[in-house]
């Protein structure tokens, strides 16, 4: 059960805006999410900004409330966590947050942040022992020991990321969500950190959900790719198929892949797109979709395409893709 994730019919709606959600309407952030991860998988979660990636990560770690039929992570039922279970779960699942600027307390030296993380999970450990552990962790993420004595504001972006990473690894978790762990760094440093991430994940045989917007980087590490669009998973494919064999199926995934590897084609006159309102039914991608046509109008505009298996291990939510498969 360790290192597995099972999600069935997960929904998340943010209460309106303002303090305590008093004003405005509800914002649906996640709609009918279904997937499972096996132990040892490194699944990448990609999709445009605001599509719900961070929110999904936070739901899986039980950091925010949500509705679902079933969400089990490491064998724990997240919706009904409590008491000793909760504590054990928090040790076994960790998150590397999106913003390293705000997720490190500027008043604590890097070393203290790590000692803290170790001692929260195991209060019986002595300070010295914790300190030794910290140095081991630092070595694991290749952070020079002398940088441990700096305060976060004087660490460079790459160093901050390493500290955050080390903190997440402090408890030897079975499941880790890393939210854009390398964005904002330059390519050689990204490559190094991702390499490190994959090595650690393999060595500990843990399961990882790697949230990223850069498919060029995803290609280096992922074993599976989950694509999100406006709160739904629209494609779930093995990385092998996505990057090396026939490529992704969903029109949105195709567009993502295309723009990641041929960015120059995107420059040119920009047309403003209108986006379908949320909750208006139909496919959320239809206004941008190249494949939907007049005869496809019916299903695409009125019926949300369900996430269905088109080949073993490969699921897509698109009416057009389903027709294509049926025609074969």
């Amino acid at each position, binding site marked *: 059960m360790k290192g597995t994730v099972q999600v069935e019919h997960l929904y998340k709606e943010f209460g309106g*805006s303002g303090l305590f959600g008093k004003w405005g*309407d509800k914002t649906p952030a996640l709609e009918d999410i279904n997937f499972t991860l096996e132990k040892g998988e490194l699944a990448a979660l990609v999709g*445009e*900004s605001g599509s719900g990636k961070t929110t999904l990560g936070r739901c899986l770690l039980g950091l925010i409330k949500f509705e679902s039929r079933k969400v089990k992570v490491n064998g724990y039922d997240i919706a009904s966590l409590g008491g000793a279970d909760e504590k054990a779960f928090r040790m076994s699942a960790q998150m590397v947050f999106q913003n390293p600027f705000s997720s490190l307390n500027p008043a604590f030296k890097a070393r203290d942040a790590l000692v803290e993380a170790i001692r929260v999970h195991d209060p019986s450990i002595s300070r010295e022992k914790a300190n030794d552990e910290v140095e081991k962790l630092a070595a694991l993420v290749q952070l020079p020991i002398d940088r441990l004595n700096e305060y976060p504001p004087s660490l460079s972006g790459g160093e901050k990321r390493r500290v955050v990473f080390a903190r997440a690894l402090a408890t030897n978790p079975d499941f880790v969500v890393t939210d854009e762990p390398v964005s904002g760094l*330059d390519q*050689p*440093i990204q490559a190094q950190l991702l390499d490190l991430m994959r090595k650690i994940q393999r060595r500990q045989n843990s399961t990882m959900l790697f949230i990223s917007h850069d498919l060029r980087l995803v290609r280096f590490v992922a074993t599976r790719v989950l694509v999100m669009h406006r709160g739904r998973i629209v494609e779930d494919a093995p990385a092998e198929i996505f990057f090396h064999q026939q490529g992704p199926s969903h029109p949105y995934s195709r*567009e993502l892949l295309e723009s990641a590897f041929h960015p120059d084609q995107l420059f040119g006159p920009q047309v403003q797109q209108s986006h379908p309102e949320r909750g208006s039914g139909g496919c959320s991608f239809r206004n941008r979709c190249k494949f939907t046509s007049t005869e496809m109008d019916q299903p695409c505009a009125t019926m949300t395409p369900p996430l269905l298996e088109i080949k073993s291990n490969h699921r897509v939510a698109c009416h057009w893709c389903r027709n294509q498969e049926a025609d074969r």
Partner: protein
Amino acid sequence: MSDMALKVEGLTIYLEGRTGMRRVVNKVQMTVPMGHIYALLGESGSGKTCIVQTILGLHPGVPGVVSGTAEVLGLNVLEKLPKYVELDESSTPTAIRKDMHGWNRTIRDVWAPMMGSKVTLIPQDATTALSPFHTVGCLLQKAISNSGKQLGREELRKEALNWLRRMEMYDVESVSNRYVHELSGGMAQRVAIALALASEPRIVIADEPTTGLDATLRIQLIALMASMVKNRKATLFLVTHDMDAARILANEVAVLYAGSVVESGPVEKILDPTYKPKHPYTWFLLESERRLLQGAEMFKGSRSISPPDEGCPYIIHCPRAIERCGAERPTLTPEGDEHQIACWVEGDYR
């Protein structure tokens, strides 16, 4: 008024870390003509944010500017600073005073009238930098009023929503009623971009404005920034890792390595894929990009950690270093039309 939007000369910055004074920026020189788009490239930790923040009088640590001038719209913004650090003969820096009055004065006299209207900044970490006390709509309306446009309340509200649409957001009504912590990382970033453009400034300084955005959005937004800036003959100073954006949109580019500019000049000379870069570090940047796109084995690791104090900062990694490189620091020297390079070895690299 001068026709230079930004003019930085001999800018050297020391900062105080736990291990003493450290030089993070060294004799940087940049001139950005009005109406141009200037890109500053360089790896993380190379001092890009330090330069931007010093020019804007925003430095978080007690600033240790030693020398240099930075003119913004013809005004030397570093002029009123008392000397804070002194160098002895062996160039060891010592702190001589720790008061912040000079900075406060500069900020009050020079920056307060310009910031947010004539000059705007798109900060690197939008989520933490935007005010948590106002809704997105409210922030935007304020920025729009800063442009000096006289708009009624309803028009102002509409214009704010338009800005969100231009940033490719959906459900704009709902977004404009939210606070920054209720947005996703990329959305906060886009709000920051909108805020900087909405006040129709003369200069936009963008510190990695598109990190955390996917390829489509990233390019759309940079193109949008560029076209808005161009239409108003304003200036964009773009700090970025994004080679594509720099290549296609910028007029000039400077490559920063460990606090020093190693190559600068027109974009078509420096970033053209078929052009042979003259500086080995520029080659390294272009080559890392090429490898990423082709899925080839990547270079790994930071290059600008602890460069030597003397000689060329790139010497540790440079495959073509000669004896002189270890002894003397190369300075930027002209290589033909407006193209400058800091390297002792002549000729193309590879």
